[in-house]
């Protein structure tokens, strides 16, 4: 579960990107985060992966107390979150297989484990036949699927996609969203930051709208479970290590 309690984020130049945000995202939820450029969406994703720290308030991701997170714990947090970027961020000098395997290398997975898991994830995103290809020779949609495979390969609880269809044509965009929906059904929490209103309207999912650093609307999906009351009394940082 992701929980933000009265969170503000002010950059060193004084720009308040987020102000007094209260937000709860339950496990296995699918959430769209929408808003105009500069509204604070990217800052929210940066907070979620500890690229930025909250200036004020409390923030929890599963067992991680983000507002007090020690630097050395960041890698562990990021291994529990799969990140998908608009610009894909792939190694162009590595094959599709190597790109996905790299994420497993980072967590110290055994070669036998990698050999088993990577083909499985590649077939899941429909790229098993392109395993030996290089990303720079592939279409935007395919590249984004590599990124999704990489985000998925370590079996994280949460996947955050920041404008995943920003560089992809509409046909491919739908395929990417379909893929994210399928992944959501694998008991993963999915957070999609997007400008693509068509897709947001098409899928009946929870939509959080941010403007000027504030949440201005939070529309639940019809079938989405009601957010539970936060329970942090037992969320000790030590627990995160266990």
């Amino acid at each position, binding site marked *: 579960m992701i929980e933000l309690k009265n969170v503000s984020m002010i950059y060193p130049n004084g720009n308040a990107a987020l102000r007094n945000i209260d937000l709860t995202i339950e496990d296995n939820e699918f959430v769209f985060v929408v808003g105009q450029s500069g509204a604070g969406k990217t800052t929210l994703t940066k907070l979620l*992966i500890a*690229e930025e720290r909250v200036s004020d308030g409390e923030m929890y991701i599963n067992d991680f107390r983000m507002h007090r997170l020690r630097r*050395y714990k960041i*890698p*562990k*947090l*990021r*291994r529990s979150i799969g*990140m998908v*970027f608009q610009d894909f*961020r*792939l*190694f162009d*000098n590595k094959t599709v297989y190597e790109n996905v395997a*790299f*994420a497993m*290398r*980072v*967590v*110290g997975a*055994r*070669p036998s484990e990698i050999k088993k898991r990577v083909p499985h994830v590649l077939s899941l995103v429909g790229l098993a036949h392109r395993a030996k290809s290089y990303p720079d020779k592939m279409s935007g949609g395919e590249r984004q699927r590599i990124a999704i495979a*990489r985000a998925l390969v*370590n079996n994280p609880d949460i996947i955050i996609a920041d404008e995943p269809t920003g560089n992809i044509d509409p046909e491919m965009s739908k395929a990417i969203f379909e893929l994210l929906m399928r992944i959501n059904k694998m008991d993963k929490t999915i957070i999609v930051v997007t400008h693509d209103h068509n897709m947001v309207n098409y899928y009946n999912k929870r939509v959080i709208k941010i403007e000027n650093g504030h949440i201005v609307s939070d529309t639940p999906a019809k079938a989405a479970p009601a957010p539970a009351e936060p329970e942090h009394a037992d969320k000790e940082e030590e627990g995160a290590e266990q």
Partner: protein
Amino acid sequence: MKLINTFFFHIGQGIKGIFRNPIMSTASLLVLVCCMVVTGTFALIIDNINKNFEALDDVNKMIVWLDDAPEAEEGEESGESAEESKEENEYNLHEYDKKTEDAIKALEHVVDVVFMSKQEAFEEFKQSEGSDAEFLDWFDAEENNPLRASYRITFASDTDTENIRYIKKAIAEMGFNEENIDENIDLYDNLINVKGALTTIALWLLAVLFVISLFIIMNSTRLGLHSRREEIQIMRYVGATNSFVRAPFVIEGVVIGLVSAAIALGIEYYLYTQVISGVIRQYEAIVIAPFTDYLLVLSIAFAFIGVFAGLFGSVISIRKYLKV
């Protein structure tokens, strides 16, 4: 097993990194080689200068001249006084005396004492004059030899002037006239000063060259890292620890450092044996040490500089990129 896998993965990534960025790798390698060759050549030249100073004859020598014994026919009075002085002094100040030689040898810093008789001095002088020694025909080594017998004392080359003065004083206390004791304290002092100045200049220059090398290495590493910042970002986003991100770059730096050291050693060998030695051989008075004398120390120094520069350069340069 997990650690071994990761270790070999890093080694592979580090070596791949060198070939993945050939321009930056070559730039770092060339800079390191240049710095090592300049530093090494300078150090070798300085050491050879020092060795030549140390090899200079008579710098660390002292001569104690022995006055001829008073003539016996000069009269009873003078004979008596000679006897008296002999009684007063336990050392023989006119002829070879084992006790005197041993006493000098026993002095601190003295490494050798050789007695040279009047006759030996005459022969040596005659030989040194060569064909110009005709005027010595007027003299005879036994009859009217004008030269004096002497003790030739050699002291350790690292003896300082204060200790040389102490040796001189101790010999004078044995009864020898101070005027009969020759040393090269002034020359020795000057040489020590020159050596000291050269060593200081050398150390400063070496330090400056080393810092410049490090600075250039760090900058070329930084440029290399800048071109790979996205790669580092990706590593960070997928949950790589700092050490995991750093390892391939460090290995890359160390490998470049070691390869640079090997190339620099080869160039240094060529420079020293062909160029420097070739030039210096034209001056017979200057002795040049063989390269093998320096091979071990130079290999260690170059390897150390290479590894240190590679390690330090990459660790410092990468810090900025680990803040993602």
